[in-house]
């Protein structure tokens, strides 16, 4: 007889638990040292409140009812709950505010095998500081915390979540064509993107720009090569790179002008964290300047969340490589 657990969930036994705990302890210590106090919020929230943060409640999928018939949802990330906390419990506190967390979150398994339904996220949120200072602080701290966790070759991809949409607007591409193009970009189906762009009424140079932009990724030279419309947009990324250089992590970042993140609340820079030992991103984040305003406290903010289990996978793989 078997007693199954839902796919995408797992039991953690002592050996693994010890290693996970070691990773989270080291990362937490690094976050605390940098002034990021740890915070915890309820796993269950009123769905209506999560929705104030984002229409899809950041993809929260598990719902239930309380005794009064209110709809409760299992949180799908910590960013929305922390925005709620800042607007309520810290309503009168002068920014900046710095928080870290290690908490479980739940998402639907949309893509099938191997995707987690329940996962442990570790991350930081920095509230009340405009770009590019906050981005530089958060990214330098993320890189340092992963170093602390035992990774050596990790890198951060940085893009601008609204760059492509702004570019489409500036080139006068009709709004009804945007969703399909952005969908191609987010899946990086460059063949389909090429086909769709070929059908737009644009000059050859403009078409070239739309097709080539997702291929622009790499070190600082990516930003130097950009001019015209893109040049203005990457102005902010250039300033960010200078700050990261000052923090000594300039060579750990990859600028990726085609990078977009799925979550709807990002308004500026977006991040993804990689390690060459594993084939998927360890986490990500970005700037979300409108989220807090939806809870009644208009403050700029940015943050990063890492999937601790994936960090563990990368750390184990690095260890196996003798790193």
């Amino acid at each position: 007889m078997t007693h199954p657990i839902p796919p995408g969930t797992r039991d953690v036994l002592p050996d693994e638990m010890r290693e996970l705990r070691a990773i989270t302890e080291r990362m937490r210590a690094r976050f605390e040292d940098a002034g990021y106090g740890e915070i915890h919020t309820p796993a269950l929230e009123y769905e209506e409140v999560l929705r104030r943060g984002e229409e899809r409640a950041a993809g929260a999928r598990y719902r239930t009812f309380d005794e009064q018939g209110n709809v409760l949802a299992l949180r799908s990330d910590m960013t929305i709950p922390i925005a709620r906390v800042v607007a309520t419990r810290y309503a009168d506190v002068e920014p900046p505010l710095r928080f870290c967390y290690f908490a479980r979150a739940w998402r639907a398994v949309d893509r099938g095998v191997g995707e987690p339904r329940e996962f442990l996220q570790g991350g930081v949120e920095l509230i009340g500081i405009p770009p590019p200072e906050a981005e530089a602080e958060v990214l330098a701290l993320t890189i340092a915390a992963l170093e602390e966790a035992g990774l050596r070759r990790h890198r951060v991809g940085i893009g601008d979540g609204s760059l492509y949409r702004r570019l489409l607007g500036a080139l006068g591409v009709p709004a009804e064509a945007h969703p399909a193009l952005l969908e191609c970009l987010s899946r990086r189906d460059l063949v389909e993107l090429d086909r769709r762009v070929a059908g737009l009424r644009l000059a050859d140079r403009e078409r070239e720009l739309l097709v080539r932009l997702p291929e622009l990724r790499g070190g600082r030279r990516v930003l130097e090569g950009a001019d015209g419309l893109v040049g203005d947009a990457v102005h902010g990324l250039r300033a960010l790179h200078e700050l990261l250089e000052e923090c000594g992590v300039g060579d750990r970042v990859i600028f990726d002008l085609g990078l977009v993140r799925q979550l709807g609340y990002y308004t500026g820079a977006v991040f993804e964290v990689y390690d060459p030992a594993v084939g998927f991103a360890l986490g990500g984040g970005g700037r979300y300047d409108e989220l807090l305003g939806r809870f009644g406290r208009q403050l700029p903010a940015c943050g990063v969340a890492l999937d601790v289990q994936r960090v563990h996978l990368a750390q184990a793989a690095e260890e196996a490589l003798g790193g």
Partner: protein
Amino acid sequence: MDSDLAIAVPRGTIFGETLDLLDRLGIDTSEVRSNERKLLFPKAGIVTMRPSDVPTYVEHGSADIGITGKDVLLEQSQRDVYELLDLGYGHCRMVVAARESGDPIGDALRRLGRVRIATKYPRVAAAHFAETGRQAEIVEVKGSVELAPLTGLVDGIVDLTATGRTLAENRLRVVEEIGVCTARLIANPVAHKLKADQIDRIVERIRAG
């Protein structure tokens, strides 16, 4: 060529043309050509596998880039891989086919309200019939799909055809075309960033012809 990329190469109908392409890129494929049973060729950076396994290895990062048919990518659309280039070869059509005589699909829909379709591409088939507003019962088969309508198992099939000869030999005819499929170059999302230079070099050389 100085590349430490791991390339997933599909054994199957596009194997030969894929090796020709790699030759043109300066990757030595002679060892691959002379070893039918060996799967892993570290010197050339090549792993060989079934075409339908290519997205699995690339998604996981066990291969940095890979080559496979668009038919495979359509069927496994949930895979998180980047599709970089249409390689042009391996030209096939994904079609709906039925017996030559009469209109078995139309008859089934009219009289029974649904059609039974055999295929190796259940997602593609289900999506096609859903998009065209017809109820379909999809029967997944692993072997020769042409057999299914001949034995009365189903009313029609969804399959890939290059020349249409196998269909004709089994007295089946194409009734609808779902799309054209060619070989594609795909990449792992992380490798696409961390090994950007090597991948771009390959993409540019293929583009240049």
